[in-house]
């Protein structure tokens, strides 16, 4: 007798909990999407940062396939400086092992878009 009441009670609690939980999940999802940035915005900001770097000729077209060293004529120290400027722009820290991999503008954009800490 009690078991049926208990199970009914448990079932009603579960549904109530589910009812409370689902809007919360919905809200969490919206919080998560607020944290990652849209790619076109990221792309524009990164291209602006690269353009404003004084060793880069600002009239040259910069796309996602632009390679820092071969296309923009920067050396390895300059590439590090561009990465630092990007870090400042998005308020994040790029790990050393990942920083070594970023050789084109596109790779930088991908890294930022994937990073949940970027602002």
């Amino acid at each position, binding site marked *: 007798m009690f078991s049926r009441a208990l199970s009914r009670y448990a079932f009603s609690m579960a549904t109530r909990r589910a009812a*409370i939980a689902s*809007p*919360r999940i919905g*809200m969490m999802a919206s919080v998560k999407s607020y944290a990652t940035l849209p790619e076109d915005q990221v792309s524009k900001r990164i291209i602006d940062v690269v353009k404003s770097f*004084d060793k880069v000729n600002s009239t040259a077209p910069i796309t996602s396939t632009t390679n820092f060293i071969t296309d923009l004529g920067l050396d390895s120290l300059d590439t590090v400086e561009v990465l630092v400027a990007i870090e400042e722009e998005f308020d994040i820290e790029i790990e050393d092992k990942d920083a070594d991999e970023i050789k084109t503008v596109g790779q930088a954009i991908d890294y930022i878009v994937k990073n949940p800490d970027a602002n």
Partner: protein
Amino acid sequence: MLRNTVLRQNCRLSFKRLLSSSHKPWLAAPAAADKQPIVDLGASTSTANIVPPTGAAILKGGFAKDTTYGTRPIYLDMQATTPTDPRVLDKMLQFYTGLYGNPHSSTHAYGWETEKEVEKARKYVADVIGADPKEIVFTSGATESNNMAIKGVPRFYKSTKKHIITAQTEHKCVLNSARHLQDEGFDVTYLPVGEDGLIDLEQLEKAIRKDTCLVSIMGVNNEIGVIQPLEEIGRICKKNKVFFHTDCAQAYGKIPLDVNKLNIDMMSISSHKIYGPKGCGALYIRRRPRVRMDPIITGGGQERGLRSGTLAPPLVAGFGEAARLLIQEYDFDKNHIEYLANKLKTGLLSIEDTILNGSADHRFNGCVNISFAYIEGESLLMALNDIALSSGSACTSASLEPSYVLHALGADDALAHSSIRFGIGRFTTEEEIDYVINAIHKRVNFLRELSPLWEMKQEGIDLNSIEWSGH
């Protein structure tokens, strides 16, 4: 109940959003249209896009309305003091956190370790001038060092020597000590300087008597930046067997100084002019041939008996680290300061009726003293309240008298009042210099528009020919 939970969570989220946007003011950055066009001087670079206030706002310090930039003045008064280099602070903190022993406690490790650091610092300080570490005596500053040298040496030799020589443009502590000696019965000759701020070597030779004990001439003047001919003065003094003391508080580390090449017997050094801590200085005292002096501060016999008292290891170690950095950074700093100084001089002297005070060749570039004619000095200083500057030296800034150094150069009262000293150092940036050039151009023009003397000058009236009538 469900609705309450949802509402509560909504509130929490919007609060979070509010917090986050307040930490991201760049989301509300001002439109480009708000920025005023700047005066194109040709010499300015792309960094000169920061606009100093214009119009009457200048005198009100009206940039309170413009919140895009900060409000703290930029620092261009390196002759008054310099910021303590973080690397020097790093060295000093060791003594405030763990190495707290008295360097004169010779019986335990606490004393030995701080003594080792003090001796290391002594070596660094001596290396800058090519001296032996044993010849460096740490004091509380260049003022104390000057007092020690100027009062101590003549007092020791007072039975045979009665005369000392100094210059009119020396620092106040030197002039005051000399005046003190006059009360004690010594004769003091104050050598005049020429229009370029340099002493006349022939006058110096003539002034030396048989009973001259000491000649004290500073290396780099703190107000006009002029470098005296130390090598020639040293040679003259050695020939006449007179002790040569030089106040090198401003010169130390900035111009090449070798005490043996320049025949210097005593040199005053200040720590806070070389990016070290305030409250420490040193006096170099030659040992071969020996310079004897009466100590001013007597006590336990520390520092060869010449300056008793417990040394402050943090200050001394900071001083030593600052000296070590001077040698390490000499070329880097010198090139930077020269580049900025040339830019500043070209930018400011392009305004008409401006005069660079002091010799143009024999000068240290980091000190630029310029007079702006037809402007009232006080109002110029007030107009420049977003730039930390000085007119004359810090020690005399409290009085309303014009600078005695500029008087000695032959400048009249009005010109002496309207002169500004710009101090450039290791940490000055090109952006700051651009800002200063822009600001001075605007404000000098503004003040001259207000000035009746400028109006008369524009009309061609010779101001010296006017008879000002008293009422």
